């Protein structure tokens, strides 16, 4: 994808952690990464407030093109972790008080 390459240093893949296409590609290439979890542990991609909802599919597309035969479905899956959306500590704390009463 020549258009990817031309703007790789200004194309943001992970908006939460401010990571560019170039940075993610470099991590994948330098270290032979094969899963979204590995990219996440090294670059923080997908660790921000959106929890990978934006970047995961793009990173998986990059991984599938570079590393495995059989497309995205052949990749190792990442674990989707709760909460689905970020929640205030005080809201969760209140929920615990309610739960403890029951």
């Amino acid at each position, binding site marked *: 994808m020549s258009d990817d390459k031309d703007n790789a240093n200004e194309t943001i893949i992970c908006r939460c952690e401010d990571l560019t296409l170039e940075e993610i590609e470099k991590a994948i290439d330098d*270290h032979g990464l*094969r*899963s979204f*979890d*590995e990219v996440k*542990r*090294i670059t*923080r991609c997908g*660790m*921000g*407030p959106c*929890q990978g909802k934006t970047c995961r599919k793009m990173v998986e597309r990059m991984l599938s093109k570079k590393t495995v035969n059989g497309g995205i479905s052949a990749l190792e899956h990442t*674990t989707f*972790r*709760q*909460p689905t959306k*970020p*929640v*205030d*500590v*005080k809201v*969760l*704390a209140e*929920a*615990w*008080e309610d*739960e403890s009463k029951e």
Partner: protein
Amino acid sequence: MNRFPESAGVVVIGGGIIGTATAYYLAKAGFKDIVLLEKNAIASGSTGRCAGGIRQQWGTPMNVELSMKSVRMFETLEKELGFDFEYYQGGYLLLIRNESQMTQFEKNIALQNSYPGLHVELIKPQEIREVCNAINTDGLIGAAYCKTDGHANPMLANYAYAWAAQMLGAKIFTRAEVTGIDVTKEGGIKSVKTADGSTIKTARVVNAADGHAALIGKMVGLDLPIRSFRHQIMVTEPVAKILDPLVVDLAGNLYFRQTKHGSFVAGQSDKDEPEGFDMKSDYRFMLEVSSKLEKIMPALGNVKIVRQWAGLYGMTPDSQPIIGGVRDVEGYYQAIGFSGHGFMIAPITAKILSEIILHGEAKSADVSSLDLYRFAEGRTIKEPNVV
């Protein structure tokens, strides 16, 4: 085509920080043909899921010595490995809520301060607020504070060792599950078998599989007293820096730290957790820890929790690791059962294990009391400061 070499000088099993650091120290000492096999990915097990605390405040001489030596290594490790893994000597604050805790802490601190180079202070609630004015000191009577303790990003530290080991020639394979170990008639290691049907000839094996170590032990006929328990943890969105030390509230069953990135990581132990390999997240953990966190750090009430996960503690009967060789299998070495505090002593442990493999004995510290046979022979270790 076989993806592994036909033979190896040593096969290290486990791509956590213990395995990768052992590979690194062996390679650094000039050991050749090092192969590391990891079932999943680097930092995918206990290391990558841990809180990243690095403390020297222990209650037995051996643990104080090991952790002090580990901190000395951490202080120059980023430079040595050529990679920033967010090592930060922000200290450790162990909160004290009652007099019986105070008595125990006074004993521990007397021991700790008997070591030149280690300085632990017993501080008052007012001084806790000077360390971090966001801490609510209601109900606290003091804290044990060591400024040279700290924390790091465990995933990056794990990778830093792996990459440095590779640069020195170690071959690291991920998605490489060990399914069997062959032993000779004389009781020596012969070869390692992998899930894809390969065999690697080797005279030496290192078991660095922590939570899964008992499965590897069984392959050479050892019945290892290691049981795995889930421990959960959660993290907030990043906020401005307000906290330097890692805080442990033993009586309140809570610990938390602020990472270099700005997020708060928090966790607790669950004494009712059943043994097993379950690593699923339980929402009640997130509610309960949020409740405790808001009480002790009211400013965090408006901060959002973004993620929750879990990992395994590989527990031994005395919550102390098992390090070294064994009597009946020549060429088998292990550093396992860290019981939740492996990351902080990983540098010194791995260095010692490499010395045992290279020279037949530990040189950097005496860990002979951490042998496998202490449980059967009534020599278990009594460490009061296990979280």
